């Protein structure tokens, strides 16, 4: 089964302030955007990031062919448990996720 990264242009994650992380999926084309919108369930993303479903914000932005998720950081930026100061590494979980 193909991974998301084979379908889209780029997946980017970054802090949105010390308490949130935001993940942008640049689909690159209308068909890819529509496929991601249809197949990538918010529940699946919550599962990947082990986050309660109700804490995820999702934006399907047709004008940009972008699907965006924002969620509270699994741990606060720079706290003792933090392993990724800029939150850029979390994108790989979605890149590698299979698009069923």
């Amino acid at each position: 089964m193909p991974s998301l990264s084979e379908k889209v242009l780029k997946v980017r994650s970054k802090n949105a302030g010390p308490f949130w992380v935001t993940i942008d999926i640049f689909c690159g084309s209308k068909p890819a955007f529509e496929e991601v919108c249809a197949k990538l369930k918010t529940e699946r993303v919550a599962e990947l990031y082990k986050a309660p479903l109700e804490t995820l914000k999702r934006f399907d932005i047709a004008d940009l062919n972008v699907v965006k998720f924002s969620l509270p950081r699994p741990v606060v930026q720079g706290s003792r448990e933090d392993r990724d100061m800029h939150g850029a590494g979390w994108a790989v979980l979605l890149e590698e996720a299979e698009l069923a």
Partner: protein
Amino acid sequence: MPTRVLVPSGVLGLGFDREALARGVAAKPDIIAIDGGSTDSGPFSLGAGESKYSRAATKSEWRQLMRARAEAGVPLVIGTAGTCGTDATVDWMVAITRELAEELGQTVKIAKLYSSQPKERIASALREGRVMPLEPAPAIDAGKVLEMTNIVALAGAEQVQAALATGADIVICGRTTDTATIAALPLLRGDHAGGAWHGAKIAECGALCSTNPTSGVILVDFDETGFTVEPMAKSARCTPHSVSAHMLYENVDPFVLYEPGGRLDVRGAVYRALDERRVRVEGSEWIPGPYTVKLEGARVAGYQTTIMAVLRNTHYATHAREWVAKLTTFLEGEIDSRMGLKPGDYHMDFRLIGVDSALGALENRQGTPVEVGVLGVVTAPTQETAAEIGKLINPFVLHYPLTEDEELPTFAFPYSPATTDRGELFEFALNHILALDDPADDPLAAFRLELEEVGHAELV
């Protein structure tokens, strides 16, 4: 009145294209505005009150901008000076400015906008119900507020306008919102409010809103219906996609941005290409609300010592997790018997580089690593204790065997001493807002403005 703002770069210290800056100055801007900070690198800068960028990089870029200001004859404004925008980093930036004024033979009037908050003020405001949590916020009480090493409030356009009203040549701001220094002058001159905040958000990372992010320099024209953005580097272009996509960047919600005194809503914004390089934006809306400013604070959460070993032996590399689990149990016993410390008195964490060090519990892939880096991080209430634990565990991290009947292994230590004392572990301790009175009465209620003139004869 149309207002032309030149933004040399997303942040001072990151560099910009000199030719592009010259082109921007030639375009006769009304103001030059640049950001000096962010929380992006973590809590250390705010906790310690230090700049993340080197003094040398900051000074060399500020030199170019002070020259550009003198040539353009317009104010130069920096927001969030010295990464965190504490009073100490404003003064650090002012000291650099004084040196440069002397070296360049410039006479300049400097306005200093201070954003640091006395802890007692925030503790009182908390008791009075004027400090409110955002989502998600760390739990705080007056006692925790008083323990913080630095607290800053994010100034908005009104405070930057007060600084500009002094007629200063250079305005050095403590913590401001990323957008305030860019939006201040257009708003003061009555340009479209939604356009002013939206254009400021688009330009605050410099050329990141263009096709050539590292070129830095951006020019924004604000007017009564919206704004037009154009990159100054010849190699860069702004397209409706590159501009609108910038609203995604480091934003929880790509359509709404909260600022002191209201919020920007860009759901109705229309992005239109004027030509190959310029984009026109209209339709963004500013919705006034209560006047609140965001607070940032940091506290010391302990002191750290680290140790690093590399497991290259295939058996150890493939059994790294098991090795660390056994080692940890053994070390907890040693620390207890030799130092009298229980696991709750300190924190010890071994991260396996090559296995799951970036994602931790979220990692869902497994492989066979050639080698595994073991990064041990000890956090304790004092540096002395953390350092002592580091020294105590050092020989075991070097030699601990997986099984009892094998010859003592020795792992690779990359340096001597094997332990590194990291100093304080700071943590962000506030995600709150502070309610203020109407800034029309007193824009500087929670801020402080000082003026200074630095005069030097022209060098001949």
